[in-house]
């Protein structure tokens, strides 16, 4: 039986952060979230029927801030998922939470529902930086939320941090990295701040004093280095894990595995087709309630050509420290990897790419200029 990942989008936050351009609504009302979860469950039930032949081995409840959902809502959502899909016994079930929106009771509930991985958005241990980012919590609040999770029985925890923040110095980042390591989470994601359109930061971008390219590069190297020393293996450009704690769900994205997504703005990849729903909760809820076909709320749908499949496979796999296994590549596509991408040899010579054990992968220095190199070698993206 084929494996399948599920992604559930919860587009609510207590408050929208200054850098965030994901689809999410601030200040949700109780009624709205209840109604949304009912619509989600209807949609999940309907879609589940089409995928009875698959085994769901990962579920990711993301957002937004899924932890703003009431205990009843999260209970009915998980129950619905379990009754609609064949969810494996040992499936990885993750939920994202924000500090200040989680208690020991909630954590215990998550645990009892089978949720076995929690991803926490911390971003920084510096309260000034948190405020500047528009986060709703302080570092102290993170500490108590983290303890609540642990006390509630959640031991597989990811902590998100960000770097290259306005006015940030490498020393500030080191403080965050070191403090985070003290909590011994099993997984750490470290994202470089990118100023996206339609965010508060974009509006004030000219006033932001961002670290320059060289400083960012230093931050990245320092970060990778320190995390590695603390026993976190970098398995993807931005992701670090203790042994055996890689995020199986996120790996699906990079390994071109199938995943099915629910909610406004959610992206799916099934049977070689990539599609996404419009980022409009009203339209989504309305369409599901009135029993319309999901294609009414599609934002985009695209069937990849054979050529695109190959380039996309490379684009995504090259995010991983493992890179592309040339034998697996050949058996999947029937062509030689290096014959198709001969330019890689040049980058290998210059130390951006490493070729060992039958695999081509970016070096650390290569990761940081991967757009440059990928746009040079991939013809069909």
């Amino acid at each position, binding site marked *: 039986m084929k494996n399948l990942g599920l*992604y559930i*989008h919860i587009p609510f936050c207590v408050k929208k952060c200054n850098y965030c351009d*994901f689809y999410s609504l601030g200040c949700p009302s109780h009624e709205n979230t209840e109604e949304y979860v009912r619509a989600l469950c209807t949609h999940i039930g309907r879609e589940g029927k089409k995928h009875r032949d698959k085994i769901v081995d990962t579920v*990711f409840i*993301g957002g937004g801030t899924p932890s703003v959902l009431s205990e009843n809502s999260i209970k009915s959502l998980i129950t619905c998922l379990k009754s609609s899909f064949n969810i494996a016994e040992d499936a990885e079930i993750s939920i994202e939470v924000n500090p200040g929106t989680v208690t020991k009771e909630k954590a215990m509930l998550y645990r009892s529902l089978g949720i076995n991985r929690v991803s926490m958005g911390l971003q920084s241990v510096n309260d000034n930086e948190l405020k500047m980012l528009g986060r709703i919590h302080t570092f102290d609040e993170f500490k108590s939320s983290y303890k609540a999770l642990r006390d509630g029985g959640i031991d597989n925890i990811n902590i998100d941090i960000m770097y290259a923040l306005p006015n940030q110095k490498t020393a500030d980042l080191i403080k965050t990295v070191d403090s985070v390591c003290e909590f011994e989470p099993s997984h750490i994601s470290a*994202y*470089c701040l*990118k100023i996206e359109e339609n965010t508060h930061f974009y509006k004030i971008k000219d006033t932001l004093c961002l670290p320059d*390219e*060289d400083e*960012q*590069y230093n931050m*990245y190297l320092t970060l990778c280095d320190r995390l590695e020393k603390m026993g976190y293996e970098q398995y993807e*450009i*931005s992701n670090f894990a203790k042994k055996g704690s890689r995020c199986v769900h996120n790996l*699906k*994205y*990079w390994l071109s595995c199938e*995943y099915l*997504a629910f909610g406004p*703005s*959610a*992206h*799916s*990849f099934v049977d070689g087709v*990539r599609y*996404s729903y419009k980022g409009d909760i009203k339209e989504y809820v309305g369409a599901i309630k009135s029993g319309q076909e999901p294609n009414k709320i599609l934002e*985009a749908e695209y069937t990849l050509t054979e050529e695109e499949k190959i380039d*996309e496979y490379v*684009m*995504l796999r090259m*995010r991983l420290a493992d890179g592309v296994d040339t034998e697996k590549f050949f058996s999947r596509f029937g062509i030689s990897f290096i014959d198709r991408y001969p330019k890689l040899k040049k980058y290998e010579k*210059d130390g*951006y790419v490493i070729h060992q054990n039958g695999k081509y992968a970016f070096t650390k*220095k290569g990761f*940081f*200029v*991967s*757009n*440059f190199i*990928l*746009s*040079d070698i*991939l013809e069909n*993206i």
Partner: protein
Amino acid sequence: MNDRQKKIRNFSIIAHIDHGKSTLADRILEYSNAVSKREMEEQILDNMDLERERGITIKARAVRINYTHKDGQEYVLNLIDTPGHVDFNYEVSRSLNACEGALLVVDSTQGIEAQTLANAYLAVDCDLEIVPVINKIDLPSADVDRVRKEIEDVIGIVAEGCPAVSAKVGLNIDTVLDAIVENIPAPKGDENAPLKCLIFDSHYNAYLGVVVYVRVMDGTLKAGDKIKMMSSGAEYDVVEVGYLNALGLEKGEELKAGEVGYITASIKTVSETKVGDTVTTAENGASEPLEGFKEALPMVFSGIYPADGARYNDLRDALEKLKLNDAALSFEAETSIALGFGFRCGFLGLLHMEIIQERLEREFNLDLITTAPSVIYKIEKTNGEVIYIDNPSNYPAPDTIATAYEPTVRANIITPTEFVGGIMDLCQDRRGTFKDMKYLDASRVELHYILPLNEIVYDFFDALKSRSRGYASLDYEFADYEPSNLVKLDFLLNGEIVDALTFIVHSEKAYTRARKIAEKLKENISRQLFEIPIQAAIGSKIIARETVRALRKDVLAKCYGGDITRKKKLLEKQKEGKKKMRRLGSVEVTPEAFMAVLKLDDSEK
């Protein structure tokens, strides 16, 4: 003089830019019913989009107007429009020569400006009767009396009782028409003498061939006559003659002395019908041409290349089409190592250059890369040979040069007094030689300088505007070739000369200019995976150096929630950018980098 001639008035309208010349022309046409309201397109004389947008007239036009004067007599008024910019000075003077008088339009809120004066002097040189028209009197800041006085003091013509109008709202237009009839003399000339027609404009028409606009000075011309261009001796059979009315050509029987009209004679390009040339009959023609004919000589040169090399042929076709109607435009194929195949184009001046570039981009949908404008240098070589250089890359080696000469211009700048200091500094900085300074009134000054043209083509106009908050106006004409200490400045990227960036500069300016451009290049060359040295060199001597550091960090896109579209978009964007790049040896450069070095901000100097 016969009765026919007595009822003709040939006149032009001259003005500084934006003083309302075109609007007044519209009102005159409308008032005299040369064109009905319904047919009236705003500013009918300026019928190129670009002219209308820039508010300037690029090519001359002429219109015949029938007007019944208050004395009950019907008059024929021929309005000959003139190009309104210094680049087209020669063409303006030819249009003025076709007239007996000129309306000098002066904005009552601004007063006399540089082009007002330049045009007025041109009109005086052509012995025209000048009729001042004070415009924009509807505006609250209008000061008619001050402007009247200024006209009398500065130009020295009587302005008492001259028409004061608002062309915009149509106020007092009748007084302008009366003044034309009453103050401008009827044309002289003998309709029985040998034919002499002055060409003041021409345009190419796909059906008729070239339509030649003429003023008949002497003689009579009709269809079937065999004519001769006196400058070239080329002969043609006249197919059609007629008048120019507001909405097009009106076929007529014949054209006689004093009249303005058109000729068609199956002529293929406008370069055969040069402005200022004399048309006569092939047999029993005039013995002497009219005075003042000059070939239109380009003064400013620039390399024009298609941004997409595959569109070279489209660019050539477009230039050929423009050339059909623009005898002053010259172009020849050239090759640049950096930019590929393109053309070295010659223009009358900077505005002419900008107009051509804009028309190529707009009307022919071409993306262009243009090199910095250059002038023609005259070089006396040590072996006695004299050569003219219009492309900096061809500048000879220093040891072969005996003396280098550069063109200079007489520049006339009018500015409010408060900016005089800054403008004199600017002229000084641009190697100007001060001639004199005149107060036009208590608040405005006219400055005369001799300036090297190569300093003017290099952002002088922008600098002038920024130092005078837009108030100063400039007018210039070619003066002479003067000996100069010039050097050829090359730029090297990663050790290789980029020919398209080479230019000629005065030796004292070389260092500063080199440093500025190197800095600008650094800002405009995107980082690559290796370090790129930028060097400026005179011969083998490096005089400035910058380094584009190696790229170390891209933007990293997340693939959150399985949304890989962001990542894809980033890659697409990067690829898009790459496609436009020009490969210079091992370095890729965006077209913007070439453009950026053309314009250095004055404030940085």
